[in-house]
Every structure is written in C-alpha cells, then in structure tokens.
C-alpha cells in the first residue's frame, strides 16, 4: 500500500509517495537521495541512521515514514547551514572524532540532540541527582552517546569534541 506524505527535510518541503513499509531512513535515502543518514544495521542497534525528528534524536530505521507526514527532519547535512559546519561538526573536525566517517553523521545528530536533552535537564542512567540541572561530564557524554556505535574506535575523540562543546 502506498501513501502520499510530505516531509520537511533540512529546511525543504519534500512530497513523496511511500510504501507504508518504508522506513523513514529508506524514505530519506532511497526516495529523496538524502544519504547523510547511514544504514549500519536497520535494527535500531547502531545509531548510524540518527536524525533529528521534530528536534528530537531518533534512529530513523526504526520508524515508518508514513507515520511522520508533516514532520520536520534535520540530518547532518542540514545542520551545516549554508554549507558552514555546525559547531559540533567543527568540534569533530578539530578533535578528529571520526575515521571512516560512516557513523559520523549519526554521531553528530545524536550529539546535537543530546546537548538539547541536557539543556532541558533530562537525566541519564549515570545522573546522580535526577531533579537538578545536569553537568555534562565525560561519563555523561559517554553514556548518552552509547547508542551510536563506532567500529573505528573514535570514542575518545568524540568525547573530547563534546567536552569542548560542553565547556563553551
């Protein structure tokens, strides 16, 4: 069964017809040629497909496109406004927070979403005080980004990149 939907992707309205079985990830990649979200597992286990959906980070392989008619989707490509890297992207460049780059767009979307969650005071598994403001120390960064696997092993540099962000 097909459905007609509209997504606002990286600031542009895109209308498309999708099979109701099409994931948001495949809609972006195969239908709209928006390929910065990557498919590492298609099972919600790696985070490579992370995008910001209405401002929140989601693994786009685990949700159907048809469920998001009218939604706003921001990918790593869209974070770079006018081609200028987002501060988190600049920090990744500075700290060499990647190697092959395949997990990277997902890491970056996840990090941007995560920083918002921290600002909003969301606690994580390692937060001691569940009611107060969150201090984004290394342990918090690691915990909050553990949904994004990196087989190249760039974690130490990813944490360094976000430490820079947390301090600024």
């Amino acid at each position, binding site marked *: 069964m097909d459905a007609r939907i509209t997504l606002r992707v990286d600031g542009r309205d895109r209308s498309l017809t999708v099979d109701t079985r099409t994931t948001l990830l495949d809609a972006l990649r195969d239908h709209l040629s928006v390929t910065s979200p990557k498919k590492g597992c*298609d099972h919600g286990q790696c985070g490579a497909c992370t995008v910001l959906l209405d401002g929140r980070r989601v693994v786009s392989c685990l949700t159907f496109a048809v469920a998001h008619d009218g939604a706003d989707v921001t990918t790593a490509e869209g974070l770079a406004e006018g081609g200028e890297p987002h501060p988190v992207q600049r920090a990744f460049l500075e700290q060499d927070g990647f190697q092959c780059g395949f*997990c990277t767009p997902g890491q970056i979307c996840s990090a941007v979403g995560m920083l918002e969650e921290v600002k909003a005071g969301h606690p994580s598994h390692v937060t001691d005080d569940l009611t107060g403001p969150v201090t984004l120390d290394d342990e918090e960064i690691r915990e909050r980004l*553990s949904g994004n696997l990196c087989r190249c092993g760039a974690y130490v540099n990813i944490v360094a990149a976000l430490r820079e962000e947390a301090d600024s």
Partner: protein
Amino acid sequence: MTVQDRVVGTPSPRVDGRAKVTGIAAYAYDRPVDDPVYAHPLQATIARGRVAAIDDVAAAGVKGVLAVVTHRDAARLADTEDAELSVLQSDEVAFRGQFIGVVLAETPEIARHAAGLVRVEYDEEPHDTELRADRTDLYAPEQVNGGFATDTDEGDVDAAMAAAAVTVDEIYTTPMEHNNPMEPHSTVAIWNPGGGFPEAPRLTLFDSTQSVHSVRSTLARVFGLRPEQVRVVSPYVGGGFGSKGMAHAHNVLAVLAARAVAGRPVKLALTRHQMFSLAGHRTPTIQRVRLGADEAGRMTAVAHEAVEHTSKIKEFAEQTAVGTRMMYAAPNRRTSHRVAALDVPVPSWMRAPGEAPGFFGLEVAMDELAAACGLDPIELRARNDPRSDPESGRPWSGRHLVRCLREGAARFGWEDRPVVPGTRRRGRELVGMGVASSTYPYYRFPGSRAVVAYGGRGRYTVRIGAADIGTGAWTVLTQIAADALGCPLGAVSVEIGDSGLPSATVAGGSSGTTSWGSTIVAACRSFRRVYGDDPPPGAEAGDDMPENPDAERYSMHSFGAQFAEVRVDADTGEIRVPRMLGVFSVGRVINPRTARSQFIGGMTMGLSMALLERSVLDHRTGHVINHDFAEYLIATNADVMDVDAVWLDEEDVHAGPLGARGIGEIGIVGAAAAIANAVHNATGIRVRDLPITPDLLLR
C-alpha cells in the same frame, strides 16, 4: 635520501573531513543512479547439502518483482576456481548463509517481501562446524596467510623445556570474531548490455572496498572480461578492517543480478545479519604456548602451536604463531599451525590477522612466566630482547621494544602496580595493571603506480587507485605529495578510489602509506626530473613503487608496549578499563592526528576483543546465532574511558624514502593481553580464554 619535511609530520586535518562530518561524502550505496533495481539475497538455511527444489512462483508473481535468480538460471561464470566466488553455479550448499539466489525488484520493500515468499527444499547432509584441538582431521596447510612457512623448529624445544628451571605450558583460546565495519558491504553494479568497450566499460561497480584494482581483476577473471572492461569506483569506504580487502561473494551476486536486468543499476547492500556469513571472519584459535627459562628469567624455549579452522570450500590459514618466531631470544623455538576444514563460512583477514590472536596467547604466557620467575613483566621482556632477528639472523632496522616498555612504564605510573595480585581494593573494586608487547611487520606490496599532472596556476593532481578506509590515507598521501613536489598542501589534490586511476595495492597489512607513499614520492621526483620546477600546464609524469633493497637486508617490524588498568567489581565481576596507554615505535609518523586515531582505534578494538567480542556458532545448525549488534557486542562509548597513544620520535632509515613503517594494525596487537594481565593483577584470576566476561571472575 628522505623527502624534505614541510607538511609531513604535521597534524594536517583530514582532506575528507568536511564531507564526512556534514554527511555529503557518498559511500558506495549512496551513489545516485538512474532507475535502480534493488536486490535481496536468498541464503541457505542448512549448513551442508543440496538445494532440492525452489518454489519462486509466489515471489515472482508479486507486483514489482523483476526476477528471481538462482543456480538454475544464473549466468555461467568464466572462472570458478575460487569456490567462495563461484556463486549460484550449482545446487551445492557448503555453509549456512551461503547465497542460493537473489530477488530483484523495483523497491527494497518488495524485494525483501518477495524473498520471504521463496520456498526452498533441501537434501540435507550432516555438517561439522566444531573446532577442537583433539580432532583427528587437523592438517598442516602448505603455508599460512602472508606466505609464511606453516611450521618452524629450531633447536630442541622438548629437551629445553625438560631442563628449564621455570616453565609455562598453557592453552589459550580466542573465539570466532567478525570485522563488522559500520558500513555493510555494498555494491551497485551496472552491466552494460551493449558491450560498450572501448567506448564504455562493460561492467561498472560502485563498491565499498579496500582495493578497487583487486576487485576489478577478480571480477574480470570471474566474468571472463578484460580488466579494462571493468571499472570499480570506491572513494569513501565505511571501514573494512580486512573484510573489504578482496572481492567477496556479494560482488559476484550483484554482477549476476545486473546481468539479469542488463542496463539497470542493481543496488545490493548486505544486511548486518548477512555479513556474519558472507564477509569473512577471524578464525577461532586454540593456542598451546610453552615457555622455558632459567632462574634469572632468561628464556631457553618458546613454542607456539596454533589450531584454527577454515572453510571446506576455500582455505584461509591464519598465521597465528608467526609473530612468535622473531619476538624473544630463546635458542629453542617451535611454531606450528594446524587447521580443521569445516562447514563454516569462509574466514579471511581481520585487523592484524595472526598477531591479534597470537599475541593474546604469547603475551599472557609471558605474564605467567614473569610471575613464575618472580620478575617484573617488563624486566622479563627486557632480558629476552634479541639483538638480531632470531628467525632470520638479520639485523633489526630498528627494534625499540624495550624503550617503548620503559617509556610507557614511566608515563603510566607502572611502579604503582600491586606486586601481589588481588591485593588492591578500592571500595567494591579490585584494581590492577597489566602490560603486553606489541609488534607488526613492515609490509610493502609491489604493484602501485602514481601519476602527477600539472593543471596550471600552481595546481597539481596526483592519481593513484588507493583507498582511505578511515586511515587518513587521503590526507597523508596529500602531505607526502606536497613535500615531494615542494609545494603547499593546498596546491595538491590526490585522487583515489577508482580503478580508472593508476594501479594501487590493497589498503591492508598496514602497507598503504609505505607502498603508495613511496610510489608518489617516486612519481613526483620523475615529474620534477622531466619538467623541473616550472612545468607547462598539462605536464604529466608517473612512476612505479621503487625497490627497497634494505627490505631484504634488515628485519623490519614495528613494536609497541600496551598498558592497561582495570577495575573489577568484586561482587558482580564487572570489568572496567579506566586507562589504556600504547607506546609505539613505527618509524616516522606522517600525520600525528590521524596516526593517533589509528592507534587508539586499534586499541579500542583490542579492548572490545578482550571483553566483548565472540561469534557463537551453534553447532547443531552451523549458524552464527548472535549475528547482530544486540548480541555480537562491540565496544560502545560507555565502555571506553581513557585510551591514549604516543610514539617514539624516530625515522626508520631503512623503510624507504618516508622512513615510515605501518600503523593501522599494531594498535590491536597485545591490547587484549594487557587487559587480561591487568585482570590477573587485580583479581589473581588468570583468564586464558577470550572474551573475559564477568562470570569468569566470580568466586
């Protein structure tokens, strides 16, 4: 003569960095193509036997399905000698998960759905997937991976062991492991129905590979084409770790599919599940290590005997014990490799094949020997550091293992290590430290060529079909070219990842920078020789990789010292690794930024190997049952705390014009042993089987 340093040695940011952080870097599957067809493979659900019947009527009837290709109708291959690549050529099933067909459809959803409708009947035969050291059918392969001798035997190990004051004789095991690069193996294949040549290639592949030229030559052979009729393009590669070092069955399947819908591009990406049967793996190993020493800890004997598996259809014999041949100065030395050919998927290269599992066995045994001698493990290694290569007798081009160990000890605070294992407690946790040696050979593979072209206005292009799989090759090759041409970094663009470029060898064996880099230096010098410093626009010159006669005269290896601190929860057995430090001696470092990332990336994979990774083969079904990231665990961000790497400031004057050896693999070698040794130091429990899981530490 070495190249004049200007940008070599500086931490230049990655030339591909911006494309990667913004996500616009197009990996194989991302290539925009017109009117694509989507492929979903069919896999055998038995481990051995024959396909008796395939009912694809329902699948073929689904609207949008273009073809179901199986052994009954797939094109015949021109060359089927490599059984791994002999895809859909018969009804035979040699391992579970093997390709038995492929469904082609207008959308991925339709292809997948239809694949689920295909009914297959088998004539099943008994299979055997279990590696044991007491199997009676173990055999000695003709040679092991890398072209090394299967066995070596110097002196009399048995007599030396019998006479030794102190001995260690233990069995160490490492499990089957999977490379699992984050980017699944992906291919977009286009078969040109018109034949095309010479106007257009007959076959074009956008592929995720560590070697465009080897994929090209392999597929040309398999499909009976001339290499010039095949083009393989692969500028961005989402990791490989050896698993993309050569063409695998999915490449052949994609081309068979492309022939079935000639003219239309076929997109095939293996699923994560499929990668566990079809993209290579590291063999499990059973290693017997015997060490003998006198009271002062001077070694008299070292024996390393490895048992491993391969597939019945294709032999891959890992060189597990080869590193032991040159590592320590014992007059009596023996190494051997015995292999069981089983009904398993085809094993292959995984980061530091040989050294990675082999140095778990050897370096844990060394820790045991140090304890048995009452010596500090660093001191034991220093006492047995050979002056020349014990195996070849050649002088070292530079062996600085002991310097690495001592430097690391000072930086890591080694003097604070508890002398008696299991005696230091902080709260609920037992803490300890461990060390292990690391090494990796200097490989350079002949067969590369580079071409330099001047475009005018001070701009040069350097072409070579190399691959950057995350190593930073693109960046370091640009640095090397800029220095060799004597121009600024920004004046050079290096083109890689296309078989239309001059030939390049594989991104493997930590050989890329040395092989391609020295080729680029030669090409730049040829260019300057012909055109001088003021070339006309359009000027072009190339050269091949220069010989390095020193490679025959010296024993050339990188070395390193791996340090780890662990904390083990005394009640739950949970293991944390708060600190790892690697000190490496690798010759000259071309780019400290990308080099450090390579080292710590390898060490992180070593941590993952130590504590998490294990592919579980269910011997009843021949199936790797934990075939996804929920069950096959790799290190996550929260598992990795402080991992750092430093290196000696040096140059290997025997390692060609760059003075550099390789760095991509040494980071994983010895890392798991350092952690295992630290676990012993913390808990007093000696774990000889990877991975080290909490249950092993509960008493």
